C-alpha cells in the first residue's frame, strides 16, 4: 500500500480552483520533489494535504496509510505522522518553542497510546535534534519564531520535523531565503530523516536544494496539475531550460 495516495484532487479558494486534478502516489522510503513556477499550485497541494481550512477540496481523494485524510482535522493528520514544514512559519509571541514542542510530541504520543515523555526524556530528545540542526540551546526558551531571521525560521521547522518524527514530511519551499551554509544544515537535517519507513515531499522552485536532498522522483506542476514526472535529471534540465518547453510539450500532447 502506498504511504500517500492522491487521486484526481480538485481544491481552491472560494470560486477559484487552484488544484485541477492532481494524481500522486508516494511510497515509504521515497523522496519526491514537486517543482513548478509560482502560482502553479505546489504550495497549495502541501497545505491541502496538511488540512489548511482556507482551501476547499471539491473533489478527489487523499489517503495516508490507508486513512481518508480529508475526513481528518489537521491535528489528527499530524498525530498520524504528517508534518508540514511551512514556507512562511508564523511568529507566535509568548509561546516558547520547548513548551509547544512538548505539547505537540505528547499529543502524538497520547494518540498512539504512549505515555507522555518526562522532562528528562524530552530534554534528551531535544538536545539530540538541536545538535543535528546546529542550533543554540537558548533558542528553546524563545518564543516560536519571534524575531527569528528567515533562515532561523526554516531551521526551526526542520528541527521540529526531526523532533516530531513524522512518517510523511512535506517541505514547502524550505530552501527559499537560505544561505548556502544554512541550506546544507537544513538539508543535512532532512537527509537524516530519510529511511525505509518514511517519505519526503519537497516543494521547491529551484533545483539548488535537490543537490543536497537528492530526490527519487521529480514532478513538474503546471496550472494545478502534475504534467511531467522524471528522476533527478529532470530537475537539472528544468534549471537549464526553464519551464516553457514543458508547457509546449503539454500543449502539443493535447
Amino acid at each position, binding site marked *: 500500500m502506498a504511504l500517500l495516495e492522491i487521486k484526481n484532487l480538485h481544491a481552491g479558494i472560494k470560486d477559484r480552483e487552484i488544484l485541477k486534478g492532481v494524481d500522486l502516489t508516494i511510497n515509504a522510503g521515497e523522496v519526491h520533489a514537486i517543482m513548478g513556477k509560482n502560482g502553479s499550485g505546489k504550495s497549495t497541494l502541501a497545505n491541502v494535504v496538511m488540512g489548511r481550512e482556507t482551501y476547499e477540496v471539491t473533489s478527489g481523494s487523499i489517503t495516508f496509510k490507508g486513512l481518508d485524510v480529508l475526513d481528518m482535522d489537521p491535528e489528527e493528520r499530524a498525530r498520524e505522522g504528517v508534518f508540514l514544514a511551512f514556507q512562511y512559519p508564523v511568529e507566535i509571541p509568548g509561546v516558547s518553542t520547548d513548551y*509547544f514542542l512538548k505539547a505537540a510530541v505528547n499529543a502524538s504520543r497520547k494518540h498512539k497510546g504512549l505515555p507522555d515523555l518526562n522532562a528528562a526524556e524530552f530534554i534528551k530528545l531535544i538536545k539530540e535534534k538541536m545538535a543535528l540542526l546546529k542550533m543554540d540551546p537558548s533558542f528553546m526558551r524563545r518564543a516560536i519564531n519571534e524575531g527569528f531571521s528567515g533562515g532561523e525560521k526554516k531551521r526551526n521547522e526542520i528541527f521540529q520535523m526531526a523532533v516530531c518524527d513524522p512518517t510523511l514530511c512535506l517541505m514547502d519551499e524550505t530552501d527559499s531565503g537560505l544561505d548556502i551554509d544554512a541550506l546544507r544544515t537544513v538539508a543535512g537535517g532532512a537527509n537524516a530523516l530519510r529511511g525505509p519507513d518514511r517519505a519526503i515531499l519537497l516543494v521547491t522552485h529551484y533545483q539548488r536544494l535537490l543537490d543536497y536532498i537528492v530526490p527519487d522522483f521529480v514532478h513538474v506542476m503546471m496550472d494545478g496539475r502534475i504534467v511531467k514526472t522524471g528522476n533527478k535529471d529532470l530537475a537539472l534540465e528544468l534549471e537549464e531550460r526553464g519551464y516553457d518547453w514543458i508547457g509546449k510539450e503539454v500543449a502539443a500532447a493535447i
Partner: protein
Amino acid sequence: MTELMEDTIQHISNFSRFNQEAMVNPWIESLRKAAIERFEQVGFPSRTDEAWRQTNIDPIAKSTFHLPGEVSPADAQSLFDQFTFGNDAVCELVFINGRFSPELSKQDELPKGVRLANLADKILAECTAVQEHLGQFAKIEENPFVALNTGFINEGAFLHIPRGKTVDRPIHLLFLSIPGEEKTISHPRVLVIADDNAEATVVESYIGSTGTYFTNAVTEIIAGKDSRIDHCKLQQESLEAYHVATMQVQLDRAAVFVSHSANIGSKLTRNDLNVVLNGEFADATLNGVVLANGTQHIDNHTLLDHAAPNCPSHELYKHVLNGKSTGVFRGKIFVRQIAQKTDSKQTSKCLLLTDDATMLSQPALEIYADDVKCTHGSTTGPVDDDMVFYLRSRGVGLEASRHLLTYAFAADVTRRIKVEPVRRRLENYMAAQHGLPQDLRITDLGSHDDSARNM
C-alpha cells in the same frame, strides 16, 4: 441636571458625617472641603464629557453607597490568606473596606529611613512631605472622582523613600473589600514619594470576592531625580463591584517609572493613569493587561505627558475580551513644545474571543514639538487563524491551540512583571480560565518585541 444633583447629595451628606469623625487637622480639612465643594459643583461626569464618552457611570452615580463601618479582621482572614504576599513582601499594609487593619498588616522590615504608614496616622498630618505633596498632583479640577476621593481623604498608604535608599522587595498595599448588609464606598488614597536616586517596588491590590461596593481610589507618585519606581496594580474586585481609580505620576530628571496594570475583576472599571515626564531623560513604561468576561466593562485611559526633552516612553496594553464584555483603551501621548527628542511608542492589542465582545481603542497623539518620534498601533481581532493552523499542524488540538494562543497573547504582558507573586497569580488565573496546566513554562521568554521593554 436635577438628577445629577440628586446623585451627589448622598456623598455630600456622607461627607458631613465623615468630616466630623475623621482626624482633625486644619490643612487636611481645607483640602477635603475644597474637594467636596468641587465635587458638589460639577457632580459626576456625564457621557457628553469627552473623557467619559465610552463609559457609562450611571450605575455608580445612581446607586446609594454608605461609608463602611468596622469589619473584624477575622471576617477578612480568608480573602487575606489568598492574596497576602507573605514573605515575598518586605511590608504589607492591609485595608478592609478602605480602613486600615493593623492586625493583618506587616510593617517591620523596612530599611532605615524608609517610612510607610497609614495616611490617617495623626503624626503624618504634621509631616511636611505629606503637606507638600498630598493632593498636589492628582487635581480635583481634572476629574470629579478625584475630587470625591480627596473630599474623603483619610486612610490609605504613605510611603517615603529617602534619597539613595533602595527597598529591594515589594511593598504591598492590599485593599480588601468584604460585603456587609449595605453597599459601601471606600476612597483609598496612596501617596508615594521617592527622593533622588531612591528605588522601590510598590504593588496595589484591590480585591473582593462578592458583593456590590464601590472603590474610588487615587494614587499619587512623585519620583525624584534618578529614582526608580516599579508599580504593579492588580484589580480583582468582586464581579458586582465598581472600581474607579486615578494614578497620577510625576517624574523628575532621569527618573524611571514602570507600571504594570492588571484588570480582571469588577463589573465596571475605569482607570486613569497619568504620567508627567517632567525632567529630561525621564523614562516611563506603561504595560497593561485586561481579561474580561460576562458583561464586564473595563476602561483604561492613559496619558503620557512629555513635558521635558529626551524622554522615552513605551506603552503596551493587551485586552482579552470574552462573553459580552467591553474594553476601552484611550492612550494619549501629549508632547509639549519643549519636549524635543521625545521617543514614544504605544501599542494596544485586543483579542476578541466572541462576536459579542466589544473593544473601543483610541490612540491620541497631540504633538507640539517638531523633532520627536511617536508611534502608535492598535489591533483588534479574533485568534489568528494562521497561528492556530501552525499549532494544529504539529498535533495540538483546535481548542488547546486557541487556549494556548489566548494565554500567550496575555502572557506577553504578564511575563514582563517582575513581581513574582503578581505574575504567578495572573498566569495561574489565565491557565485556569483556559483549562491549561498551572505554572506553564512559557513565561520567562526573552522579548524581541521592542514595543515595550522587559524591565
